[in-house]
């Protein structure tokens, strides 16, 4: 009599160790190392009064409020786009979806500055309308609301992509049944579509929240003038006056951030708990609602949004790349493409940076996808007790400001790796690992929510066909979560392409990234060169997206996020 060989539950034996190893390397190791250093430093540097400093609690409060409202803004913006573009008969969906991705590519400082310019006394737009506030009047964006708004713009694509993947998995007949029940479009949305796409929604909102908690660029520009400090800006200020207690302070502040992001996660978990999102049967087609007379209105609103979040900052960017110096009024006589010549033909760093960033971003996006599909599968199907812990650990690195994560990785890797004796410090590998760690959550979220919605019988049918785990993964699971996988790859790619704060600390000769190159140019006052490089990055991304568009027919349905 032969005994059964292994548990019949759906995952292979190596999956749990694999997931644990991934989480250990990408999250536990750097965070743990940082914590150890923090504790050691706290003991050496004496007890710090950080916790009793009201400024800290004010910062926690400000972080929470800005992140919360930022999340709301991202959800409204990204959710609105996702709903309108996937469910309604809007014209020009592809173009709108395509353009909506791009603001993620514009560095937040650029967006912030162009918005300040737009709404401030020198705004050409407001001047033309006669609405320009007098010189010196307070800038409305220097506020909690302003920060939240820009967070929203910056993170809207996160919500858009993750929700869109959820919407594509909606069963059409469920929507139809609701309409036939007499529910108006609004009721269908509220009672059926949103609850069913809740995993995607919650994932997008959670990742947006976490991203806001860790953002540095926007509060640095918009917050500090209004005396609004968030935990990341506070951390920067600790680094600015580096002292013996700095590591302790930074670890403590990072722990705060970790707690905030875990709070966000718990909320997400609560929202999703005890519900079933498995779509029974086929979900091949998406229902399309007619907007009727509202269509014009919706289309105008969508294009207007694109204008504000993309065209205006981009115009500002292009304008400053063409200006010979900052503040010189741009006209056909003053405009010069000298910056582009300089960037393209004289600066050697440009090519290195392009190669590095594109390689890093592509490797991270696709490498992470492999890890996240497995981890996501484990989290959703695994019924493991450790699932919540693993989910939380995956999330924290993304919430930490890049500088903290980079420090953590320096702490881990500055000395040669024990046993093998190779040092990856100063090579591109350390940036890659840090990227893996930081963007793990971005990549994981949409995939997890897609798995939540999957009808388990589809996998069962494949198992009975004799397909082993790897096979099922390749043939059934990945194609079925393709929209989410596509979203995760594109998101990670977009974010990694422009990444600055991590690589700023980890780069060394020959491993400059685009973010670093732009920052360095900007920091040294070569604004026009920095702008020109930014414009080139946007152009590069647009070209890559167009290539994707050309390949779209060969890719699984729903992968290319602006195609319906």
């Amino acid at each position, binding site marked *: 009599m032969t005994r059964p060989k292994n548990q019949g539950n759906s995952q292979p034996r190596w999956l749990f160790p694999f997931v644990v190893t991934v989480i250990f390397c990408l999250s536990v190791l750097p965070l743990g190392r940082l914590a150890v250093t923090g504790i050691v430093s706290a003991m050496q540097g004496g007890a710090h009064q950080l916790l009793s400093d009201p400024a800290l609690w004010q910062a926690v409060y400000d972080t929470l409020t800005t992140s919360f409202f930022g999340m709301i803004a991202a959800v409204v913006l990204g959710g609105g786009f996702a709903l309108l573009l996937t469910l309604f008969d809007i014209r020009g969906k592809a173009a709108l979806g395509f353009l909506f991705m791009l603001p993620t590519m514009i560095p937040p400082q650029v967006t912030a500055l162009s918005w300040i310019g737009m709404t401030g006394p020198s705004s050409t737009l407001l001047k033309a309308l006669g609405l320009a506030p007098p010189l010196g009047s307070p800038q409305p964006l220097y506020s909690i609301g302003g920060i939240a708004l820009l967070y929203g713009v910056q993170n809207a694509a996160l919500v858009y992509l993750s929700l869109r993947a959820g919407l594509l998995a909606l069963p059409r*007949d469920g929507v*139809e049944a609701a*309409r*036939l*029940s007499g529910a108006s479009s609004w009721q*269908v949305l509220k009672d059926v579509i949103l609850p069913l796409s809740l995993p995607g929604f919650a994932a997008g909102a959670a990742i947006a929240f976490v991203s806001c908690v860790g953002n540095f660029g926007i509060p640095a520009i918009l917050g500090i003038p209004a005396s609004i400090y968030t935990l990341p800006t506070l951390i920067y200020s600790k680094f600015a006056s580096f002292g013996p207690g700095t590591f302790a302070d930074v670890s403590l502040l990072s722990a705060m951030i970790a707690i905030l992001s875990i709070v966000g996660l718990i909320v997400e978990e609560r929202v999703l708990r005890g519900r079933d999102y498995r779509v029974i049967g086929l979900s091949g087609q998406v229902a399309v609602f007619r907007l009727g007379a509202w269509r014009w209105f919706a289309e105008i609103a969508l294009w207007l949004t694109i204008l504000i979040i993309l065209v205006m900052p981009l115009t500002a960017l292009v304008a400053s790349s063409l200006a010979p110096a900052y503040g010189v009024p741009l006209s056909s006589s003053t405009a010069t493409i000298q910056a582009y010549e300089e960037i393209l033909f004289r600066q050697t760093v440009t090519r290195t940076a392009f190669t590095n960033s594109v390689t890093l971003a592509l490797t991270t996006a696709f490498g992470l996808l492999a890890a996240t599909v497995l981890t996501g599968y484990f989290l959703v199907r695994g019924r493991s007790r450790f699932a919540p812990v693993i989910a939380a650990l995956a999330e924290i690195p993304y919430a930490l400001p890049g500088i903290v994560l980079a420090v953590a990785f320096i702490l881990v890797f500055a000395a040669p790796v024990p046993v093998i004796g190779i040092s990856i410090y100063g090579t591109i590998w350390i940036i890659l690992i840090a990227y893996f760690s930081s963007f793990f959550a971005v990549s994981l979220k949409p995939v997890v929510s897609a798995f939540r919605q999957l009808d388990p019988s589809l996998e069962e049918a494949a198992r009975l066909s004799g397909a082993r785990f790897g096979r099922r993964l390749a043939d059934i699971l990945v194609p079925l979560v393709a929209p989410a996988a596509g979203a995760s790859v594109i998101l990670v790619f977009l974010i990694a392409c422009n990444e600055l704060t991590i690589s700023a600390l980890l780069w060394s000769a020959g491993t400059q990234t685009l973010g670093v190159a732009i920052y360095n140019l900007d920091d040294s006052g070569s604004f026009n060169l920095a702008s020109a490089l930014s414009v080139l990055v946007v152009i590069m991304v647009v070209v890559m997206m167009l290539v994707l568009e050309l390949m779209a027919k060969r890719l699984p349905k729903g992968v290319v996020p602006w195609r319906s």
Partner: protein
Amino acid sequence: MAKLILNSLSKSFETGGRPAVNGVSLTVREGGFLALLGPSGCGKTTVLRMIAGFEQPTDGSILLGERVLADASEMVPPENRNMAMVFQSYALWPHMSVAENIGYPLKVRGISGEKRQRKVKDALSAVRLESYADRRPADLSGGQRQRVALARCLVTEPDVVLLDEPLANLDRHLRQEMEETFREFHARSGATMIYVTHDQAEAMALATDVAVMSEGRLLQVAAPEEIYARPEGRLVGGLVGQGAILSLPSPDGDRRLLDWPAVQSLLSTREIGRGNDPAADILVRPQDVEIATEGVAVSVLSVLFEGERYALRLALADGQTLRAFSRRSVRVGDTLTVIIRSAWRL
């Protein structure tokens, strides 16, 4: 409520070759109960989906009384049609409990509190799912899901009820109970009902009218007795009842209902002068084939036990097959003689 009129309704899908529905014209009278019968893929679901407003006709129009519900250019959205439907795929909302699923159409209509609870409870007990009110659809068996879909469909007072194979996954007992429920519901509410089924016994038992479709076209509409007794054409003849269709020489005149002497003479003409006369399709129903001591000789091709009786497939001398019932088992290969009590020229 008013007549439901389909006016040379057509629908082509982009991906499909031939139209899924092709020029279907049909009037369902007020409070009528129409059964839609037809082979798999003939367009039944598509017709229902157009009536419900989920698909726009590519041609033709749908009217409810005077009101144009849909034509090729415009349509009333489903939520304004006051219809209810049982989907072939059930279309339950996985995030709602059974009771919530059933109560949703009431909720949307603003019925709440005690009244809604009572109605939901009634609907639950009508489908025998009282104790499952708090389950999620994913935790139900196939038949239970179907029953939830049924309950949801019947909980309101719709003008038109569309049922797409609503009993396909239920056992005989429940089927009978549910048929009873439909009948009651129909009598009570006076709603116009359209019932898609592949089970013609069910169709006959429930409907006031039976429509038969094939390959997107409407073949015949008539009352059940009528369509059973006088089917038009091979397709309807083959679909309604389990008859076998024989190809025999045309009988004289325009007699269509043939008795044994007439059939016998046709069978024998065929044996003598074959090929001369134009062939006619003659429908022979199994209950009209009687095993007797004399008659036409047949050999037994197959014998299936059906519980109540055996279903036989018999071959005539020239290889054409007949169907028959027998209370006794016979052996495959045996030779029998049968009398054909009645037959119908299609």
